[in-house]
């Protein structure tokens, strides 16, 4: 099968891979780049565990054809912290106990980051809207919402 060359930025680094036609971005990231932070939950856009940012916007990597991200910038949870320093969202998730099994957490954090990047002072309703595509089956939504609001507050305090 012919493979397609593909180049994009992955958490600030240029990467180049050859992909089979038709594979999705989730598989490309996990199996070709080796970034295991986006998770497979359903493969049909239902759960949000595979959420990544493409040029700053949150997308479901399981429904994104890998070939469509050529030349674009992808952010995943793997790039969220700054060296050894946790991102305010990560610190807030820890402090607010906003993870139980942890499987939805990468997607939740990326959806929350997309929100705070475009809206540093969201309302509670805006936070709920921003994570509405991400399912937490341990049903820890309240701590997650509180964590995002806490991160927004601490982010503003630092700025």
């Amino acid at each position, binding site marked *: 099968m012919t493979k397609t060359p593909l180049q994009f930025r992955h958490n600030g680094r240029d990467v180049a891979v050859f992909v089979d036609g038709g594979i999705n971005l989730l598989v490309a990231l996990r*199996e070709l780049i080796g970034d*295991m932070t986006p*998770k497979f*939950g359903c493969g049909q856009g239902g759960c949000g565990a595979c959420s990544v940012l493409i040029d700053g916007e949150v997308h479901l990597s399981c429904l994104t054809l890998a070939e469509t991200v050529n030349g674009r910038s992808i952010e995943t949870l793997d790039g969220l912290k700054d060296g050894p320093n946790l991102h305010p969202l*990560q610190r807030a998730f820890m402090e607010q106990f906003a*993870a139980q*099994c942890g*499987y939805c957490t*990468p997607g939740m954090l990326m959806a929350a980051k997309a929100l705070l990047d475009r809206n540093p002072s969201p309302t509670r309703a805006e936070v709920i809207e921003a994570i509405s595509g991400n399912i937490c*089956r341990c049903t820890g939504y309240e701590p997650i919402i509180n964590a995002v609001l806490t991160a927004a507050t601490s982010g503003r305090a630092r700025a």
Partner: protein
Amino acid sequence: MLELRKDIFADERDDNLKEIGKGTQRQDMLGHVTGTSTYFDDHKLQGMLHLKVLRSPHAHARLRRIDTMEAERSPGVRRIIRGADVPVNLNTLLSLINFGKDDEPSLAVDKVRYKGEPIVAIVADSPREAFEAMAKVRVDYEPLPAVFDVEDALKPGAPVVNDVYPKNTFVYHDVYDHQKLRFGDVERGFAEADHVLEQRYQMSPIEHAPTETNGSIAAPDTNGRYVVYTSTQALFFSLDTSAKILDVPSNTFHFIGGTVGGGFGGKVDTLTEPLAILGAMLTGRPVRYQLGREEEMQFGSPRGAERIYIKDGVMRDGRIVARKIRAYFDSGAYTRLSSYAVVKCVAHLPGPYTIPNVHGDVYCVFTNRTPATAMRGFGVTAMDFALECQMDKLAHLVGMDPMEFRILNAYRDGDMKAHRREAKNTALIECVQVAAEKAKWPLREEVKRMSSRKDGGGSRAAISPTPLEPAPQRAAVSQQRTSYDRAPPATIQQPSPPTPTPPAPPPPRPQAPSPSHGAARFSSVFGTRRR
């Protein structure tokens, strides 16, 4: 008393274990928020193959022929696994504790008994090539009549779901087609009651829907063993089950797990490990077997549906004097853990209430539905739903406040439970009082003063005369020995010693098993104490 040399670690840890209210951090939280927690699927192994399973589209069908010729030649296919390739292709999960008969194949051979049942496993270089080969497998099905309703399954002439249990019920102690509870005389209780209320309750199956689907990766290790990364909730249970199915000593495997992307009871069934390991054994390569979301829903067990009939006799003053329960657990096509759910359910009757006459019959029934399994309080949860709905209806019937009605009937210390054990450390009254307070629900002063520690025992500690029922005929002992019981060969072949004539009620106890692992330690599963 074991002496612990705590002084060695005195500067590392104090003995203050008071953690409540302190907000102690989870040890895995940093991994979760940085995405470095390693789930089974986060292992990337050199040369890893992918296993996909062809599943039955029918709820009940005979398999006339399975033709894999064309699929074998499909590009990327490394191995096709059929039922005959599975060393011990019949298992039941609780056989590890000698409870129940092997009734479920890893890959169907002669029949399929529910929609989604595995038939053929395909190991290929990529998931896509496995799916392409799967489309080339030809299966000749002869559809058979199916039964989907628990009570229909018990009617004469109903299709036999699972040939191991021809009456469509799990068999307890080789005799009983259900679990019983008898305490006092419910018919006399109903005759004396001011009101009798009979209701029917029906639960649906409930899917755990973990965000991470069930799966595992098995790989040949460097020392002749196999390393298995798995999503299981029950690591050693899955390890032993795999050892039994693959007929190898359990030290053949090194299971690695513990980081589970949501389980809720749905990851105790060892759904993927045996085939993943078998694939690794047959190909010499790492093999990954991960359920898709649809497979998780169709093949991964749900919480079983239950149908519950409750008939209660209640006095005008609010005392419940008789409770009769008949319930059916829908086990689906195979046992998995439903037999145990029924034992738990009967142990929970009649709910946390002191009732002098209780009668319970609970059945574990086979139907052509997806086999059911554990889920958060299974066996008790649905029964509690029914019991508490019933309590509200009874309170309404006698014109009492539902909170006060519960307090009136609650167990108190010293009361006799229907299982003929004294109630101790009871606290339902206090729970209801606190719930009422939090909900700003008015209770009368005298009810607020009631306590679990007062007014129990006495006449409430009595065991009402219980009518005797004829003991059922004991069939030949058939509690199987499996190849997993690695006892000396002579004892494997011989049936266990005959049982002494059982005394007419109380119900006969199961015979003492021939020595084997586990059975004595896990006796609570059998509902009686052994040895």
